[in-house]
């Protein structure tokens, strides 16, 4: 286990993972939810709260939220991070926690998040400032930015609305196998195409949910991981790239920072896309998994639409993508990245029930933040893949 490409491959592991309150979670606050998920993840690991000495969290509507969960849980973390890269923050936390663990700066990292916008609607003014260079043109935030990227992909590569709809239908079919998923009724390509258009080419069914949910994971060094309750899930690679903030400054609307973070994470892990059994891709909108499949190397640039066609990423298809039902059909409480990691852990442990991928040994979780602005890729395995 040497340091490769700047990352301590396999020297830290995820040992606890949990979700809480997916779908509707009324009557309590976001920090209540994050605390519940955190305690469930610690119980899953067989680690006591007092062992936690690092906290990574993203409070939904509180600019100083990095400290709230520490206070709530009675922790005195040596490292606290509240990174502002949107939904990708959690994949970045895995990277940062692995480095801090390997350096010996910390011994036990808790990564936790809770948000219930469906039950407890956010205040009128959010944490996001409106760009003075975009706001006068009234784009729907963030939807129209993704729609602009989709328009460009369709123009250059002939990607179709039917291919976008395939992503939504595949997610729904996976959700139907996941009792935790919030939306499980049948969905057809025709229904997606016939749904209310919101910002061309994206209909309301091309958009992720905006519901409640909390999640947490616990990370320790490999030696400590051996004594935990369940088989550890070693972190094999983790890389991040930020290319812009607003869509008008995206260097190329059809190439995301995943084209940087993906190859770096694969190089750290000594793996290639063909090795991966379970692919968890942030699906804020149906265009995003198509872009990430290309940028991460699962298919050539421009081929993403054709790649997802014919149920290729649906249950029984050629590549298992977003097996929990994704942000499109399972859960998306504003920042979804942590749920990608929990599902990857469940698949690698063989805990995924009806949707379990047989002998899943290697998984990828790819987080996205902003408007295709921040991209972070994490590769996870099992001890035998070290």
């Amino acid at each position, binding site marked *: 286990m040497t340091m490769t490409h700047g990352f301590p491959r396999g020297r830290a592991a995820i040992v606890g993972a949990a979700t809480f309150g997916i779908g509707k979670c009324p009557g309590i606050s976001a920090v209540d939810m994050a605390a519940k998920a955190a305690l469930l993840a610690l119980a899953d690991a067989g680690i006591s709260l007092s062992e936690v000495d690092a906290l990574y969290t993203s409070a939904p509507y509180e600019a100083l939220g990095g400290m709230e969960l520490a206070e709530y849980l009675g922790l005195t973390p040596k490292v606290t991070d509240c990174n502002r890269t949107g939904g990708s923050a959690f994949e970045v936390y895995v990277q940062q926690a692995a480095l801090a663990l390997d350096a010996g700066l910390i011994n036990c990292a808790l990564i936790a998040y809770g948000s219930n916008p469906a039950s407890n609607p956010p205040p009128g003014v959010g944490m996001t400032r409106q760009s*003075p*260079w*975009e706001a*006068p*043109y*009234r*784009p*729907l935030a963030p939807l*129209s930015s993704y*729609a*602009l*990227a989709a*328009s*460009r992909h369709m*123009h250059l590569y002939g990607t179709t609305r039917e291919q976008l709809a395939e992503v939504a239908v595949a997610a729904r079919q996976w959700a139907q196998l996941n009792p935790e998923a919030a939306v499980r009724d049948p969905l057809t390509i025709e229904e997606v195409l016939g749904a*209310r*258009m*919101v*910002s*061309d*080419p*994206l209909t309301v069914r091309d958009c992720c949910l905006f519901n409640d949910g909390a999640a947490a994971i616990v990370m320790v060094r490999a030696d400590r991981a051996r004594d935990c309750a369940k088989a550890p899930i070693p972190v094999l690679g983790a890389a991040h790239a930020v290319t812009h903030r*607003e*869509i*008008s*400054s995206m260097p190329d*609307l059809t190439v995301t920072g995943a084209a940087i973070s993906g190859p770096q994470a694969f190089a750290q892990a000594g793996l290639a896309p063909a090795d991966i059994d379970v692919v968890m891709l942030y699906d804020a909108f149906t265009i995003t998994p198509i872009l990430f499949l290309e940028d991460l190397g699962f298919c050539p640039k421009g081929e993403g639409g054709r790649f997802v066609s014919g149920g290729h990423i649906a249950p029984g298809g050629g590549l298992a993508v977003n097996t929990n039902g994704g942000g499109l059909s399972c859960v998306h409480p504003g920042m979804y990245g942590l749920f990608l990691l929990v599902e990857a852990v469940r698949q690698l442990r063989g805990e995924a029930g009806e949707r379990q991928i047989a002998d899943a040994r290697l998984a990828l979780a790819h987080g996205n933040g902003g408007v295709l602005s921040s991209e972070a890729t994490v590769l996870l395995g099992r001890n035998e893949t070290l």
Partner: protein
Amino acid sequence: MSKPEAEWLAHLAGGRFMIQRSRSTGGHVFYPRVAEPGTGAEDLEWVEASGEGVVHAVTVVRKKDPADSYNVVLVDLAEGPRLMSRVDGLPADRVAIGLKVRARIIEEGDKPLLVFIPA
């Protein structure tokens, strides 16, 4: 000390669409800032944009009443930078990628606004 946004808005209010250019690198910059992205060059001066551009990407924000729907575009300026705007003078559905456009300053909500019309 330059005041990028305030100066740009003042030019716009005066009927001029200005962008920045670095004296040393020759690179054009939009949105206005204190240094050129990538190089950090601080020797930015205001130059009048040609106003010529091409629609790079387009979406239509749909409203209940189709008459209220409107387009949002990204325009590649002839000078290089890309910006968000709107194409006026065409039904929203007719605004397509590749359309050649020309800048125009209009009044909207008592403020000057940069939009584009078909060239």
